[in-house]
């Protein structure tokens, strides 16, 4: 059990983490957040003195991948310590408590930190039927409204809570919606991804602890610092795109030579995320480096944007049916137009049926 009164500095010291390692983490965090190096001591100071903020993690219609991701921030890395350094008072998957005890822990945390706690949500909220997803007999939407009421801010971890994600995909059988459609009176930061990059999740929390505010957001509510550039612009395969060298299949010579995966459906050019820079598994690689195109998982409705394996330049709805319907409609209109034209010709007496007698015609031609 973590003693709440301890600051992060004290906790790190107790765990034998050197100050050098801690400052290194602070510098890395400042760098990730695109802050000047001078901010590193400020982050250190804030993190060291900060009492651990209460965090209530709500899991709705989700796959727990986001929790898996944040837990794999690289154990026992400094990121995981930061994660520990917050007071995670409620997380269905991770907490030791169960049943009524778990709910009691949430209610206690809410009461003790009213107006100050952070709510992290992963998963979308089903509105189709309250029974589609419940926790302790309470529907997700009720829980969210109740918990968000006293929150300082809401962090949507993962595409499901940020944009609806996979449950929101057509035909959306549960009537799933993102958190932002329910909570409109609290600051919300979206950290989309399926799942999001671990360092992005921890950095957003670190930013909140350091500055007491959320980072600068883009028009989709995502931290600009991580979602400000598209993957294509930072992709190491970009030169092959410029040259028009595309892998034709996943095992051809082009794929082996590391050519651009645009033709295989890579959504890197339209996806804003930091995968190509921060990478995954402690900087090992990212999907494109592993040979598969980007799925665009940090963008809204990524599941409904046509095939993952169709290039961005292809049409999503145009097909032979449209062309056939066009030909048919055109033929009907054309036949009508032709008929009307013939009638007008006949009415205007301009056709050969009005040809003058042969002798006159000869005269005309000679004149």
């Amino acid at each position, binding site marked *: 059990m973590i003693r709440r009164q301890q600051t992060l500095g004290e906790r790190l010291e107790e765990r034998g983490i050197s100050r050098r390692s801690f400052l290194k983490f602070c510098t890395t965090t400042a760098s990730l957040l695109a802050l000047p190096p001078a901010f590193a001591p400020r982050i250190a100071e804030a993190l060291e003195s900060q009492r651990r903020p209460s965090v209530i993690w709500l899991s709705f219609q989700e796959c727990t991948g986001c929790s898996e991701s944040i837990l794999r921030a690289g154990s026992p890395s400094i990121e995981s310590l930061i994660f520990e350094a917050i007071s995670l008072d409620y997380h269905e998957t991770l907490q030791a408590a169960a049943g009524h005890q778990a709910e009691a822990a949430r209610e206690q945390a809410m009461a003790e930190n009213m107006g100050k706690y952070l709510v992290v949500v992963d998963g979308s909220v089903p509105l189709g039927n309250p029974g589609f997803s419940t926790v302790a007999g309470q529907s997700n939407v009720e829980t969210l409204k109740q918990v968000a009421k006293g929150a300082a801010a809401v962090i949507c971890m993962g595409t499901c809570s940020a944009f609806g994600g996979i449950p929101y995909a057509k035909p959306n059988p549960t009537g799933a919606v993102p958190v932002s459609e329910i909570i409109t009176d609290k600051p919300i930061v979206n950290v989309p991804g399926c799942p999001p990059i671990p360092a992005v999740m921890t950095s957003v929390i670190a930013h909140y602890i350091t500055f007491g505010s959320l980072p600068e957001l883009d028009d989709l509510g995502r931290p600009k610092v991580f979602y400000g550039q*598209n993957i*294509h*612009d930072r992709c190491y395969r970009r030169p092959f795109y*410029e*040259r*028009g060298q*595309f892998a034709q299949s996943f095992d051809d010579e082009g794929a082996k030579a590391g050519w651009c995966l*645009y*033709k295989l459906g890579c959504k890197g*050019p*339209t996806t804003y995320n930091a995968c190509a820079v921060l990478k995954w598994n402690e900087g090992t690689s990212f999907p494109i480096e592993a040979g598969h195109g980007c799925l665009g998982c940090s963008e*809204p*409705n990524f599941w409904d*944007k*046509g095939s993952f394996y*169709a*290039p*961005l*330049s*292809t*049409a*999503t*709805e*145009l*097909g032979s049916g*449209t*062309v056939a*319907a*066009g*030909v048919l*409609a*055109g*033929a009907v*209109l*054309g*036949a009508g*137009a*032709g*008929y009307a*034209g*013939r009638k007008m*010709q*006949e009415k205007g007496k301009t*056709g*050969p*049926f009005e*040809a003058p007698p*042969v002798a006159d*015609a*000869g005269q005309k*031609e000679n004149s």
Partner: protein
Amino acid sequence: MTLLDFARGPALQGAAFIFVVGMVWRALGLLLLHRNTPLSRNRDNHLARHGFRTVLSRFIPAPVFERRVSFQYVAGWIWHLGFFVVLLFFKIHVMFFQGLLGFGWPTLPNGVVVAVAGITLGVLLWLLGRRIVNPVLRYISTFNDYSSLVVTMLPFITGFLAFAHYGFAYETMLALHILSISLLLVWFPFSKLIHVITLLPSRYILGVKFWRRGVQA
């Protein structure tokens, strides 16, 4: 729905539908009209052959007008060929057709296509400028001429910007590129761009008419 989703989906679908409807409609409408039947004896017995000859002979300027119209011919040739090269031999365009038709074909290197596109756009801009500056051309130009030229140029401009990742974000530029093509498709059957289907048959008919009367055109 984002702008790109709209462009790749309903916009392109709707535009292609209008394009096909318009082309079939206008082609069939013309085809079904009454034709004049000759009232005099043919002065030549190989009309079909001469008709085709006229189709081909009009591709180059008539010697008598050569000095005055050569620029128009050369400029026209360059940008029409450039248009087809960029449309049909740019790798990403072939991917589009492959998605639509199920098969693709060999393409040209990006560098070559970009150069061709640059020349094509340059010629189109020059022709637009000439149409505005030259008093005679300006006098005979109508909205149909200007709009068709601009609507043809827009896909080149947006395509360049999308390819070069210049201007707006890539997804916005790609969406604008697809929307400009959609505009071209919608505009095509109802403007002078319809000449794509009327040009060669008109030449043939003209050739037959001339040769029938003994005019060696």
